[in-house]
């Protein structure tokens, strides 16, 4: 890989941005709660610390338990490498929407089974909820991407997101609604408020945190890291959607684009933090109602795609 | 000549109607014999009309088998198994007779409606008698409680058919008429045997109680 400036930006994004996003969210939440909050890169420090720690495993668990985090991390990294970042083409080419979605599913599959592996009722319970939430949110996520794909006449992510702004045929409304749908389903997928509370430690209400309740040491580090990458991946896609829709209104200079994506990602982090500060966690039974919004946004986006597609 | 035949067939039918009005086995059998006798007479009249010698044999056959042997055998059977009086089923016996009179009227209309053979002249009233016998036989079978009654009903029905064959055709082939007679004889013998068996194993011959075989 030739070390161009674009690639440099890419590598920096991939290494720094995930931790930065988590840090920003935590910091802003702390601000709203009148706390100082941890340093912005606290999660990175945590990671280093965890990698140097001993690991405790349950006596009942098997190799599946350790394979879960490994697979999620490898998978997330792979996905991050195969998704375009606005002007940057991915190093791993040929990833289409469905492959993307199903690699995510593969990761989910292994995280579900590895969380049940130790036989802990808490993590298994969370796994059940995770499975339920994810299949409910799946249509929203897929349809949002497919709507984009239909407008772009391709299911290849590189062709949907990686187009130069001037040949971008996808209309504003599709970008916008898809972005919204992705954001809402991202809240579900990333276990954020109001679906899941990542900061409490009550086993019975959590989903993601409870799933990894048995993990420790390097194993937990991989989980945290892959979560951070997932955050990056989702926010990256969402941010691109919004940047594109923005670019339909204001002509952005090409050089500013990568920067604007990063800015929008941070802004999304702020938004998430604000939502988490101002909303309460929904009761379990209300979750489908929330997901329904995500699905409606994706449906709106697909309708928009059809409406705009007819002309061409 | 034709009138004679008409009179004879109608008389046979009237005997059948009278028969349906009685519950006494022996009376039934006597009336059956009378009815068959008049059929034999009708047959005789036909034989004279057609001048066929074979029909005379048939007449003798009828008299020997159906007028004498069969009623005698059946009344012997009725005596033996002490089946004297049939209480009747589904319809009171007098009413049965009234219905059979109605059937007689019906058979008149039926006979008029029949696409009959016109070669022998006006035969509608002959057909009336035959059909009436047939219907009365059916009614008899349907309204008698005793197995014996069903045999008598069957015989009456068969009489009707025979009468029909005799009066409405130019005479069935001889061998067939004799065959039918033989058939009746064997059927009555076998039927009688079974009636006897029924009496032995059920200690009655009430066929309405033979309903062990059903769904």
């Amino acid at each position, binding site marked *: 890989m030739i070390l161009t400036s674009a690639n440099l930006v890419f590598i920096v994004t991939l290494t720094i941005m995930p931790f930065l996003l988590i840090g920003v969210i935590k910091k802003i939440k702390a601000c709203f709660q009148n706390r100082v909050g941890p340093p912005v890169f606290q999660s990175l420090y945590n990671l280093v610390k965890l990698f140097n720690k001993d690991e405790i495993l349950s006596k009942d668990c098997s190799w599946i338990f350790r394979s879960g985090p490994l697979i999620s991390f490898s998978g997330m990294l792979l996905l991050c490498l195969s998704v375009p970042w606005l002007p940057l083409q991915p190093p791993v080419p040929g990833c289409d929407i469905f492959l993307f979605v199903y690699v995510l599913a593969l990761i989910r599959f292994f995280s579900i089974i590895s969380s*049940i592996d130790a036989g802990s009722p*808490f993590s298994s319970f969370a796994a059940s909820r995770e499975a339920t939430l994810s299949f409910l949110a799946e249509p929203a996520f897929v349809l949002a991407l497919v709507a984009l794909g239909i407008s772009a006449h391709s299911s290849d992510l590189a062709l949907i997101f990686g187009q130069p702004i001037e040949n971008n045929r996808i209309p504003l409304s599709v970008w916008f609604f898809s972005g919204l749908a992705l954001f809402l389903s991202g809240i579900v997928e990333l276990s954020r408020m109001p679906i899941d509370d990542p900061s409490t430690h009550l086993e019975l209400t959590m989903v993601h945190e409870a799933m990894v309740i048995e993990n420790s040491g390097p194993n937990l580090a991989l989980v945290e890291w892959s979560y951070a990458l997932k955050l990056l991946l989702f926010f990256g896609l969402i941010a691109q959607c919004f940047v594109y829709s923005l670019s339909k209104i204001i002509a952005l200079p090409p050089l500013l684009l990568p920067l604007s994506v990063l800015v929008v990602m941070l802004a999304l982090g702020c938004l998430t933090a604000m939502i988490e500060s101002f909303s309460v966690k929904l009761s379990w039974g209300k979750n489908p109602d929330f997901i329904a919004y995500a699905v409606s946004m994706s449906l709106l986006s697909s309708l928009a795609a059809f409406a705009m597609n007819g002309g061409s | 000549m034709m009138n004679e035949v008409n009179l004879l067939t109608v008389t046979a039918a009237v005997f059948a109607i009278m028969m349906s009005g009685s519950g006494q086995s022996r009376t039934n059998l006597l009336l059956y014999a009378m009815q068959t006798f008049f059929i034999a007479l009708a047959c005789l009249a036909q034989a004279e009309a057609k001048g066929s010698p074979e029909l005379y044999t048939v007449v003798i056959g009828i008299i020997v088998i159906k007028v004498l042997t069969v009623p005698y055998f059946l009344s012997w059977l009725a005596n033996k198994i002490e089946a004297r009086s049939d209480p009747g089923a589904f319809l009171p016996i007098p009413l049965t007779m009234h219905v059979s009179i109605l059937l007689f009227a019906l058979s008149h209309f039926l006979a008029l409606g029949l696409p009959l053979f016109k070669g022998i002249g006006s035969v509608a009233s002959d057909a009336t008698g035959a059909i009436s016998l047939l219907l009365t036989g059916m009614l008899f079978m349907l309204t008698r409680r005793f197995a014996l009654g069903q045999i008598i009903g069957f015989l009456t029905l068969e009489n009707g058919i025979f009468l029909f064959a005799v009066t409405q055709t130019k005479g069935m082939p001889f061998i067939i008429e004799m065959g039918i007679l033989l058939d009746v004889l064997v059927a009555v013998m076998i039927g009688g045997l079974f009636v006897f068996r029924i009496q032995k194993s059920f200690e009655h011959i009430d066929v309405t109680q033979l309903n062990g075989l059903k769904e």
Partner: protein
Amino acid sequence: MNFVTPLFLAAFMLLLASAVLAIVTRKKFSLVCVALTALACVFLISGALQIGRSDSLWKLSGPFYLGVAPLSFRFDALSAVFSALLGLIALCAALFSHAYLKHLSGRINQKYYWCSLNLFVLGMLGVFLAANAITFLVSWEIMSLSSAALVVWNFSESKGQKAALIYLGATRLATAFLSAGFLWFHHAFDSWDFAKWHFNQADLLVPSMMVALGLFIKSGIWPFHIWLPYAHPSAPSSVSALMSGVMVKVAVYALLRFFLIDGSGSIYLAWVCIALGAISSFWGVLFAFVQSDIKKLLAYSTVENLGMIFLAAGICLYAQVAQLKEIAALAFVAVIFHSINHGLFKSLLFFCAGAIDSAVHSRKLDSLGGLINKMPATTGSFLIGSTAASALPPLNGFVGKWLIYQSLFMLAASETERAMNVLAMILIGLLSFVGGLALAVFAKMFAVVFLGRPRSPAAENASECSKLMNAIPAALAVLCLVCGCFAGPLITYFCRMHPLYSAVSLPSLPIGQIAFLFLAFAIFFYLAFLRKNGERIRYFSTWDCGYGSLLPKMQVNSQSFAHSVGTIFGHLLQYVTHFEIGGHDRRHFPERIKAETVMISLLESRIYGPALALVRLLNRHFSKLQAGSIHLYLLYVFLVLVAMIVIEVLA
């Protein structure tokens, strides 16, 4: 030069010989039967591979004739693919059952089993090769009856009988519809040869629908699927593998042969296929989620997969009519590819279920658990099977699903009716939903069966079964992986099977590269982060909130895992709880409380139950006619006489 006919003939003869031998010989027949059947399957596979793209007809001349047409068979690429699948799965099944039957010994009559199994394979082979309607139907019925015989292998168990009866009933209905359709086609074309039938005529919609209906019933498409969750679990696992892996594909094959190759003239069939396919994929996976018997769960998953296959078939039919060649080609390949894939992974899973059953003597999810340490080989195969069944890359299940997605996507993006675009979009949403559920289903099954702690003493004491029983699923697992990673050439091959699609270029799927990268990453990170601290691992009990040791019963089980789904889809999955409170003073001091939750099957209680009740009611009324009274019977004679005369006079 061409060994196809002799090879197939040899396969036929060997299967027949094996069936007869099973009955006739007295001792040691099991091994001979296995050998003969396996040899037949090998011949079958090699014959199928020989066919390639040639097309030949083979009439069984001589004394064999079926009333209206001779026994005749046709070999072409399509039948080759399916008979190769049959040969493969049958080979596996025969070898597997050799080991598996020991576990059932005493309960199963081996003669009966081997005879029926061989006839079953023979019947399926006949269907795949049949060149005319009569040969097709004869083979079809041999297949159905012998498989029904296998479903009821345990003569004294009433569950199996019920299953077999439901199955027989369903299969007979299917035959009735097929017969009606075939008769009609014969009426239209005056020939029994499939080659002379053309399904692409709009005025033959009704018979086409009848044939399709027969196929729907046989393949267990909603709402005709109810036999499937009864029949598949009741059969011995090796047979379930054949039934689910190959037999239901017979209907898919017929659909391909009749409608997809030839094209259906009417759009309605496409709509029906799409609608029923979509509903059954959803219904199947939803009901699979709440099952707690491994094989029943797998059976419902078959309903789901068949639904997807029929959905793809529907899209293909639509695209053919709408002249969208590329989409049609994609959907066509999807139908074949997913049929094969499903055959591979589903039989793999059923074989594993058999292995579990023979090790633990239970198929109830709630009495299993923790088998990963006891049965490592089975676990590995099952994991691959589950991932394939949840359509996860890089396994073959994903490729099939990807093809369906792609065809739907292209349909949504294509310039056709707007309604169809929207429908395709909705179907994508539905499929992704179904995919998510399928993932949850298989994650649940895998986790409950293999992970955690054993939920019963039997599971605690389980041990790995014989090598043969491990090797067969493992071989299938390798095939699943190969079919997934090297999907490209296979897709091209299948595409060429249709005369019109050979020139169409399809989108490519870089699944091999992705899989390779993934593996490389995983190995790298394992070496980098996890392996080196192997000596720094400490073992402790699972987190128990500090309350003390967790019992195996406290683990999540199949029902509790599915609970949230049960509440969301409460209208479809109707649970009814029965309480039984016993004791001297039940109200104040209950001594024994028993609560049982039962799920009401909507279709059975609302549709099939009433239909059956109607037949019974008719029977009851008819029985009254036969009341035993001779007077009544005589009356019938007279009434019929009167009726006939009246009809004659009126006419």
